[in-house]
């Protein structure tokens, strides 16, 4: 048995602590204004970070093979939760995604992401020989994913939904599904997006706004312009910690989706380089662990987790810097959000455990 992967653990901890600092720096203005308590978001995030790190350490000690055994139970529990949230969830920012517990909120779709990865890994492991057969091997799991996606979209939470779908697709690719099939999926995906746009035309406006945010600076282009106003003036070295101007009510809720803008503003290009490097290092380390893992279930699990992490991170960054339309995806480790942080750290715990078991 290999020992604990210290570099990975340290990078995760550093990134999360930096996230905590940035959550405070970007949120205190709004927190003071809204709740009369500048530490409101900091306190909550701090609690979840401690909880998350403990969880990560505990999870890293739990043999990942246990998830194989309990995967259906975990999946079923999460499935029930994402249905329940549609009925008894609390609505925030127009989405019914949370179970409110006091001032805290639990976001079941975040848990579903991990559950789905575990479930898919087991599925792929069990149906190894059928995976070449689209009908028999691939369609069932895709169908299930689609159902989950639709359920999440009912909240609606497009960001989490798309990440979940992409995570499964990535896993299927690793599991050996024919590339041609992915092409067909891509076409289906595009058709699906077109369908979604027809269903709700505001999405088209969002998509178009990212191409040229200045055409509608006060409407659909607003967030991206405000984000660019934060990133641009940051320059090479930024205004320094705490000195962001955009967090002064210009950028709405800067501690969530657009925390990276505030990081750019306060730490400049150098800060961006360091944060990106940490992300890439964590992803790189995790993929290496996945590659090394000889147990197929473990390999799939690790890959799934990495895919979700990498996809979420790159999607968030691309949105923030205006490369993709606004989707509503948080930045792992850094953005404010208890459930997201807890699940991300827990998944890292799994990776750490797989790493430990690698020879």
């Amino acid at each position, binding site marked *: 048995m290999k020992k604990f992967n210290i570099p990975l653990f340290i990078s995760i901890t550093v990134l999360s602590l930096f996230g905590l600092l940035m959550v405070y720096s970007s949120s205190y203005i709004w927190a003071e204004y809204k709740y009369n308590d500048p530490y409101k978001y900091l306190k909550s995030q701090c609690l979840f970070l401690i909880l998350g790190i403990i969880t990560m350490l505990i999870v890293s000690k739990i043999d990942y093979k246990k998830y194989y055994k309990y995967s259906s139970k975990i999946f079923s529990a999460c499935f029930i939760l994402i249905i329940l949230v549609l009925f008894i969830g609390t609505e925030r920012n127009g989405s019914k995604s949370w179970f409110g517990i006091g001032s805290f909120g639990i976001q079941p779709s975040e848990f579903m992401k991990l559950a789905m990865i575990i479930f898919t890994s087991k599925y792929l492991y069990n149906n190894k020989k059928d995976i070449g057969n689209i009908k028999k091997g691939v369609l069932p799991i895709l169908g299930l994913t689609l159902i989950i996606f639709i359920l999440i979209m009912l909240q609606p939470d497009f960001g989490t939904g798309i990440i979940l779908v992409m995570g499964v697709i990535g896993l299927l690719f690793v599991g050996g599904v024919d590339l041609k099939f992915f092409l067909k999926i891509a076409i289906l995906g595009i058709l699906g997006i077109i369908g979604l746009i027809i269903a709700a035309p505001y999405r088209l406006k969002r998509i178009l706004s990212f191409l040229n945010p200045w055409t509608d600076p006060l409407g659909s282009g607003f967030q991206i312009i405000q984000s660019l106003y934060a990133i641009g*003036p940051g320059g090479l070295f930024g205004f320094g910690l705490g000195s962001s101007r955009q967090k002064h009510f210009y950028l709405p809720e800067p501690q969530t989706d657009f925390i990276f803008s505030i990081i750019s503003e306060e730490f400049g290009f150098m800060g961006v380089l360091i944060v990106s490097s940490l992300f890439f290092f964590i992803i790189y380390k995790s*993929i290496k662990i996945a590659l090394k893992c000889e147990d197929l279930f473990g390999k799939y699990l690790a*890959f799934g987790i990495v895919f979700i992490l990498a996809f979420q991170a790159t999607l968030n960054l691309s949105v923030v810097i205006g490369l993709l339309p606004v989707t509503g995806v948080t930045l792992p480790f850094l953005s404010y959000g208890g459930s997201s942080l807890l699940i991300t750290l827990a998944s890292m715990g799994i990776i750490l455990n797989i790493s430990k078991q690698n020879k």
Partner: protein
Amino acid sequence: MKITLLIIFFIFIVIILRVFYIEVIDYKKLNKKASDLWSRNLPVGADRGIIYDRNGVILADNVTTTSLVVIPNQIKNKKETAKKLAEILNVEEDVMYKHVSKKTSIERVHPEGRRLSYEVADKIKALKLDGVYLVKESKRNYPYDTYMAHTLGFVGIDNQGLSGIELTYDEYLTGEDGAIKYFSDAKGNKLSLNEVYEEPQNGMNITLTINNEIQTSLERELSNAVTKYNPDRAIGIVMDPNNGEILAISARPNFSPNNYQDYSLEEINRNLPIWATYEPGSTFKIITLAAALEEGKVDLNKDTFYDKGSIKVENATIHCWKHGGHGKETFMQVVENSCNPGFVVLGQRLGKDTLFDYIDAFGFGKKTGIDLNGEATGIIFDRSKVGPVELATTAFGQGVSVTPIQQITAVSAAINGGTLYKPYIVKSINEPETNTVVKETKPTKIKQVISSKTSEKVREALENVVANGSGRTSYIDGYRVGGKTGTAQKVENGRYMDNNYILSFIGFLPADKPEVVVYIAIDNPKGTVQYGGTTVGPLSKAVLKDCIKALNIKKADGGKEKKYKWPDPKTLTVKDVTNKEIKEAKKDLEGFNVIVEGEGTKVTYQSPEAGTKLDEGSTVRIFTE
């Protein structure tokens, strides 16, 4: 499987490159836009450029005033603030409330809060109200008030040039306002970040070709003319004939640019020296004379002419201004006497095309191109419609219509050696801090109209006019003055008006090498002889005398002695009578009014001193022990 790692790596590189683009390449643009978003500007008014005369005398500058500015977002108690401000400014409370509650980042309290007195400003300052600011604003000031008002022009409430040089050179004179920039959050609250002071960039200074000493003289004389004759209009221009520089320019009626609102638009907008268009009368004869001399059509001293008081041209009879005519005269005398039939003959000798070619060449019928707005073109006969009668009248200045600036520019060319210059008034434009020349006007030669030989002959003839002829009232002892009078009947609805003339005089000195040309025209003077020499001559003489001082022109020898003519007073030279017996002295000073001071018998001192020329009957004081 490693391909996934590569793909992820690639995506990260794209992201980093994009951030690099935003933060480094696009930095300037975004930073500027974001800065505009974050910062609120308290304006700091820039000073408008100063206008100087050629010797550095300030003709237009600025006085600093204070204006009230409010930032509605920072005003917590709008009612209270509005009430207090309204009290001090003495305006309705709801008017002020509208200002302080306006949905704007910054509101200039206009017009109630503009240009506040120190007293009011102090009261407002003492209140220490949130979101209420006093900012510096500069106001245009014209120290010489009405001086050359039309030419300088004036500015509006926001210091924008509205007429004259203020308008034509507005882009140079206007500075760039600075600001005190402070940062604010999206709700308008002031952030505790450092304020940035952006220094205003003052406008550029303009130096004119004007000589304020001469300008003062011209203004004084025009005012005198107004007091004495109550004319409809009075116009004066002083020019350096050797380069087209305007040394003085003015007109009546005028206005005060400090209070331009009190005048009618018509009074303000018409810059008469370049806008007024009228028949020049005899001053135009200089053009005919120059053309005839250049073409060799006349020898002034040898050729003679018999003026019987009128001349028949086709079916029309053209009268000389002098009833009965001048009799037999040389052409020099024709010029001296300003004899109309004589000039008709010169016109006929030249012929239609030649005369009109010269009129064109001297710049009539088109704008001179002076750097002022509102210039008129004047009206010259359409050549195809010129018959013998039109040719005849044009030759002595009737039937054509010119502007004062055309007149003085053309005459300058006739006497300066023959070169027509483009007149100009802005000498240079300078950067205010370093005084670097941004733009400089150099004299512009338009063309050589006549030869310098011809020009010399014209000068001589015009010097004779002042010494012997109709321009005698402008004779200055010890200086060589040339000039020409003009009397033009005004035309209304195509008919000459009775007893309504524009009297003018154009004079220059020194006659052998002119340094300055003065043109003065008085439109419809009341209660005087309607004749240029009598009315305008003394005015231009006074201006010319001041030019002598201002330009430091030396006394000259070789001038023409002024011919004695009734009713001109005779001038006598005061003899040296010191150390002479009183009786003897009185004899020597015959023709003067001698006053003896003291009880002695011998003269010890005399005033004025010997050698002074005085009019007959002037007082000479002699002092005894």
